[in-house]
């Protein structure tokens, strides 16, 4: 069967690697903690996977009961513009629609995450924390 992508490699070979589905690219876990609800993200956030992050965080908004929602991005290996847009929208939703405390975003200094956030200036907009415990305490 011809592969869906019709990719050619320089030696004329056919595409070898299987296509990951979005469940392989991102994994999400929501954990109830004393100080709030933590959504742990592992993997890549791009146009394919950002909708899953969005719905996980919106579900968390539904159950926080006034406590902060924390998005933990320390295990994220890629963050593209669709992910940045999702973070912006979720932060706006937390305040404007839900009247909650602003969404808290945990990023360490891993370049693939902090670099795009800084390029587009979201470091001035998002409530950023260096660890989940910091985000839950403050």
């Amino acid at each position, binding site marked *: 069967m011809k592969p869906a992508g019709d990719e050619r490699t320089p030696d004329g070979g056919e595409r070898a690697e299987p296509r990951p589905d979005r469940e392989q690219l991102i994994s999400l876990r929501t954990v109830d903690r004393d100080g709030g609800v933590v959504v742990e993200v592992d993997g890549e956030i791009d*146009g394919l996977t950002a909708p899953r992050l969005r719905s996980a965080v919106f579900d968390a908004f539904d159950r926080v009961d006034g406590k902060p929602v924390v998005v933990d991005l320390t295990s994220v290996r890629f963050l*593209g513009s669709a992910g940045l847009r999702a973070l912006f929208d979720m932060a706006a939703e937390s305040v404007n629609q839900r009247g909650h405390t602003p969404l808290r975003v945990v990023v360490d200094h891993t370049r693939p995450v902090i670099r795009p956030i800084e390029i587009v200036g979201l470091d001035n907009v998002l409530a950023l924390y260096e660890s989940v415990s910091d985000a839950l305490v403050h």
Partner: protein
Amino acid sequence: MAPPSEQDEQPLGSAQEQRYWRQGMPAPAGLELVFGAEWVIASLVRQRVASWLRELRWPPAQIEELVLAVSEAVSNSVEHGYQVMPDAVGQSGAVEVRGRVVQEPDGFRRAELTVRDHGAWREPVPGVSSRGHGMLIMRACVDRFTVNHSAAGTTVVLLGRPAPPLPG
């Protein structure tokens, strides 16, 4: 597009090739990929571009920059060029990605990545949008970012920052 072959690719200067040769490594050829437009291809392109640059022993921080930029270009082709819906399967057109190494006279190397689609160009809307962010990212991550668009499609060329020559 002519069928690619290794003979057509001349990505490395001969001094560079000799260094690889001395180190017992084959000189990596240029990168040439053609995918059908689906959202998942951005992650495939990220993988392929990263492993191509690792083979070329590119500095890791520069690999991240180039991967960020090329991912945005590919996402634009899928989302805007062909207006593929996120859950769509099957493709509406081709996205071509090419990579080559440009040898500078001082021995430094630059990676040039070209992303081409045959879809329609739409001007990015100013303000907060993933599209506007994508443009900012591409501009920030490479030395030269050019977009050419016509009725035949859109071509984005990303010329990376200079990387040091291979030792030896």
